[in-house]
């Protein structure tokens, strides 16, 4: 055991012995996490500031706008003050068209409703959509041509369950998922030790009395411990230093993280075995992790949605998306419906990658 620990210690010492590896392995994820937290933590669970839409209208548009939320018993319409209107959705003033267009240009109002119920806007947004919906509803009711008494405007036809969610979390969980695969960097060196491609270290390993299985075990153990350490460091940094709540003390995180770590090692082993050049191996590992994480939403939650809509299969089988999504489900939603499938799928991927790597190594090792 002591010998194993010594080997692991040296393995890590060699690997972390240069600035570049230190940066990509430790500083880069912590830097990203810090920058993300500074930039986006304020947006988490933030409710939109929805105020009543400020509008202007032509006097002749008053009645249809008034009827949008008319009282149960209609007053004498001729007696109503038509110069202003206010309900739960909008507040408005009667205005001449030129005056209203000037107000629209200066962003004082979001829409102007003309006498024929056409609407003038100067930009797109939720307030403009609400006013569009209001006028559309008025037109539809008019088109249906039913007696007003047939409508039960006071009945609630929909039971609404509103929850506070945070879509920006996708960025953070993609980063956590990427870090859980960091074992790939160390595992990527295994191929170089076992397949003689001109490297002296491989030649030395091939002639040493230390069994190959032992050498592989040391590298795998070092990769595993390293990625476990990285995950622990990220969790501690997130929860206790940045004071962001992303992880709940849920035991279901354990199988998920373990399967992610195994996949990370298998991925590194696979790339290390299949790619001959050492510099290309590192580039392939860095870029593959960044691409998988990018597709999963590391750089923008919008990219993730775009991929999910346009290429659902890429999204569905992308390991980083699988891990990130499952982390959200376990830690934010307490939802374990797909946990077993994801864990099994990740282990399945790992078995395939390890099998291909072993077969390739057996053919190439001499």
């Amino acid at each position, binding site marked *: 055991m002591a010998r194993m620990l010594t080997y692991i210690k040296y393995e890590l010492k060699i690997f972390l012995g240069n*600035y*570049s590896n230190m*940066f990509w392995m430790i*500083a880069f994820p912590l*830097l990203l996490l810090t*920058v993300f937290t*500074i*930039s*986006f*933590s*304020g*947006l988490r*669970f933030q*409710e*939109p500031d929805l105020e009543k839409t400020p509008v202007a209208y032509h006097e002749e548009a008053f009645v249809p706008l008034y009827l949008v939320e008319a009282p149960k018993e209609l007053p004498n319409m001729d007696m109503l003050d038509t110069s202003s209107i206010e309900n739960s959705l909008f507040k408005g003033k009667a205005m001449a068209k030129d005056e209203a*267009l000037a107000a629209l*240009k200066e962003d004082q109002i979001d829409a102007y409703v003309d006498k024929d119920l*056409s*609407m003038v*806007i*100067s*930009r*797109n947004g*939720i307030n*403009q*959509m*609400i006013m*569009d*919906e209001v006028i559309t509803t008025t*037109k*539809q009711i*008019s088109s*249906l041509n*039913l007696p007003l008494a*047939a*409508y*039960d*405007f006071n*009945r*609630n*036809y*929909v039971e*609404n*369950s*509103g*929850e*506070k*969610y*945070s*879509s920006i*979390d996708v960025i953070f969980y993609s980063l956590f998922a990427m870090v859980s695969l960091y074992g790939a960097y160390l595992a990527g060196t295994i191929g170089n030790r076992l397949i003689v491609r001109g490297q002296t270290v491989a030649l030395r390993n091939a002639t040493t009395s230390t069994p190959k299985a032992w050498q592989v075990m040391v590298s795998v153990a070092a990769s595993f411990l390293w990625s476990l350490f990285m995950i622990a460091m990220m969790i501690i940094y997130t929860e206790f230093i940045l004071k962001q709540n992303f992880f709940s003390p849920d035991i279901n995180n354990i199988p998920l993280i373990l399967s992610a770590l195994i996949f990370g090692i298998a991925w590194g082993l696979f790339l290390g075995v299949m790619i001959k050049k050492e510099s290309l191996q590192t580039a392939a590992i860095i870029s593959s992790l960044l691409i998988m994480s990018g597709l999963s*939403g590391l750089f923008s*939650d919008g990219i993730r*949605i775009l991929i*999910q809509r346009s290429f659902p299969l890429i999204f569905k089988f992308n390991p980083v998306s699988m891990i990130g*999504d499952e982390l*959200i*489900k376990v830690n934010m*939603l307490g*939802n374990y419906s797909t946990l077993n499938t994801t864990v099994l799928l990740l282990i399945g991927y790992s078995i395939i990658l390890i099998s291909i790597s072993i077969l390739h190594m057996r053919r190439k090792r001499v």
Partner: protein
Amino acid sequence: MNTLYYFIKIAKKNKIMLISYMAILIILTSLISGTYEDKYSRQKLNIGIIKNEDSQFGNSLIEYLDKENNIYYYDCQEAAELDLYTRFIDGIVEIPVDSEKILLSTNDPPLRVFTDITNSQSIFLHRIANKYPLYYKAMINAGQLDLERLSTALHEKAEVIFSSAQNVTEKRFHGFAGVYGFVVMMILIKLLGDLNISFNKKNIQIRNRISSKSNHRLKGEIMLAQILIAVLAFLIVIGFFLLVLFGEMLKSQSLAYYLLVIFLWTMVVALFSNLINQISKTKALNDIIGNALPVIIMFLSGSVLPIEFMPGFIQNIAKFSPLFYYNQGLLKISESNFDISGELLIVGAFGIAFYLTSIYLNKERKTETL
């Protein structure tokens, strides 16, 4: 000339990186440009449907929602929850068992809607979903249920006129200038860094020592070459974008102001790269700084997210970033406020500070060597 020759050699070596950065510039500019619209676009809602009943009411409701929105089917609320969390869908409409019976014979809600109260689109879904049963029940109450007539009525739409005095090309150019601000940082830090490092090679240093040229003159020439390279980068990138993508901008009154700010910024970045070169002497460190620093400055200066959305202390930190004043200058020009002398002065002052610090560091290093 020798320095420029080296630069071309280095640019050739880094052609993939340069192409990638240009691609980033084009992609980000296009993405940002897409957000500036000159017509009304009612955003489609993405609605998750959980259908527990096969009734006339349920089916016609789905048909109505499907016409103007994107529909995704789920077996249960648990299966749709993650997609609602990530905003893949804006809300979930559940048609419960016996929903038609509930609509017609009770006063209870016949539909269930799950929304995300942090998403304004989601809140809007509630209104859309409420409308259909209202009309359906009204037709039943009036004894005139006719799904075709209902469908025709639902086709009625408000006429929306988009009136915007602002020129969309100018808005798009503003978006491009914002992206240029940090992409040019990445390009110049990398290129000028590699150039400087190539002069640090042992054989070149030995040659320089025995050369008749003074060290002072050599440094001056390298500095001049760096400025020339920055001017070239400015001319090539801006020229390409102006001629290919923003031709209409050539007639714009604001173009001169934009070019002034962008040019000054490019020069300041060149001086900043020079300062970095005094600190970083290896290619690996230069790569790290060249990739990491622009990303940090970009986030802290309101290039990605408007600075008003950031915490107070970040807004204070932003005031120490020249990119913040560059962005402020661009914002003013986009609002047709051409009084940008304050921003230009501050950005220029940063440039002078970078230059003086690099001279100081260079002297310090020389003293240490002696």
